[in-house]
């Protein structure tokens, strides 16, 4: 029952809040506390920034041998999504057939259950992505 480790990340996982370097302006998600380019000048000064959740697929795979807790999803689509603000994030693509996913497909973030610590434990919520139908159908 490891509670604090996941609780700490809640605002970032629930709301996709990234961090932005005050010096170079680069946006990071998952959030970083130090900008890899500006180092010391950014430590303790990174600003929180709300991301839109919109992006496109940079790469993907269909997972047949699942991670613990994902058995009911298999086969499931995992992807690296490039968010419109720049950073890339690793997440599951849902509400989409495996044969319909493609590189550069527009997607948008949704709020879903990620995993649970057994039937008695805490449910971890976070982001997954669905096809951005509006953008696709344009």
């Amino acid at each position, binding site marked *: 029952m490891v509670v604090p480790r996941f609780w700490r990340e*809640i*605002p970032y996982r*629930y*709301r996709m809040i990234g961090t932005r370097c005050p010096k170079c302006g680069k946006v990071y998600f998952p959030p970083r506390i130090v900008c890899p380019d500006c180092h010391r000048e950014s430590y303790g000064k990174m600003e929180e920034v709300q991301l839109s959740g919109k992006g496109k697929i940079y790469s993907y795979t269909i997972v047949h041998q699942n991670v*613990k807790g994902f*058995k*009911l*999803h298999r086969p499931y689509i995992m992807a690296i999504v490039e968010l419109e603000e720049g950073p890339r994030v690793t997440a599951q693509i*849902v*509400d989409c057939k495996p044969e319909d996913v493609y590189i550069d497909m527009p997607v948008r973030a*949704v*709020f*879903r*259950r*990620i995993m649970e610590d*057994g039937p008695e434990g805490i*449910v971890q*919520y976070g982001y*997954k992505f669905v096809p951005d*139908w509006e953008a696709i159908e344009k």
Partner: protein
Amino acid sequence: MVGIVTYGSYIPIYRIRVEEIARVWGDDGERVKKSLGVFSKSVPGVDEDAATISVEAVRNALRRKWIPPEEIGAVLVGSESHPYVVKPTATIVAEAIGATPKVMAADHEFACKAGTAAMQNIIGLVKSGMIKYGVAIGADTSQGAPGDPLEYTASAGGTAFIIGEEEVIAEINHTLSFTTDTPDFWRREKQDYPQHGGRFTGEPAYFRHILGAAKLMMEEMNTKPEDYTYAVFHQPNTKFPKRVAKKLGFNEEQIKPGLVVPWIGNTYSGCMITGLSAILDIAKPGDRILAVSFGSGAGSDAFDITVTENIEKINRRAAPTVREMIERAVYIDYALYAKFRKKILLPPGV
């Protein structure tokens, strides 16, 4: 005047057809479809629950009109399938929209009318001046016992209303409730599936309370059915709302836009309010709506609503309409449905 400032709904993408469920249990699918007036119901994905549905619904509301999270003073979530028995869904939703920490939050339960109960309480908080905006949500991933008639319609979905006094798109002229202690449908603690009283759920429950609340409302507001553009009632199937509409004197045209049960089933706490959301998707300024929910146990909440010009000022197209979500459907078979709804005994750690 207090009213709805913005609204949003969410319906999961999966559907199962009534004849597919009938096939498994040896029922006559065509007959069931006809008697219920329902073709299919929505099924939540493996990673969806009342919390995720609530968050998607309120995010859709915020897409239509942005309310700064620090101005949201309360989040109340009504459901009969809260993810936890102890630990409120409302805190998860409040966190997900950034309304924490200065916010009141609590969960509601009143069978299928937990969402409208939440609405009434938010109205009270707003009217009293205690909060500027409040979020009222009704969402469910209700379970029907395998082989039970309720399995045909127990579905998943939800709707969120953000209620306030500024630039309301629909004024809530009045709300009242008709409540009695009537055991028509219940679930004891630690039981997986609900029990119900069969035909007892009709006259003494659904009809008595909806008719009671609707008549009281029209009395207090001094209105007649023809004064309303639309009427929407709790819809466990198509027969009941059509019959109660007729009894009250409403016609087909008035109830048609709000009738969503044929495609998505009964979303329990999301039920009547998702029908109301479908009406708001097409409503025009000046439209008047009578909305009456029903929750087993039992009670009905009635709302007399008038749509304002502000409905054309929010961006209704910024979020999917109920019709659009109904149309975006992926049909699954009973086996997948049983897997998704965890009706299969799974070994630990799956």
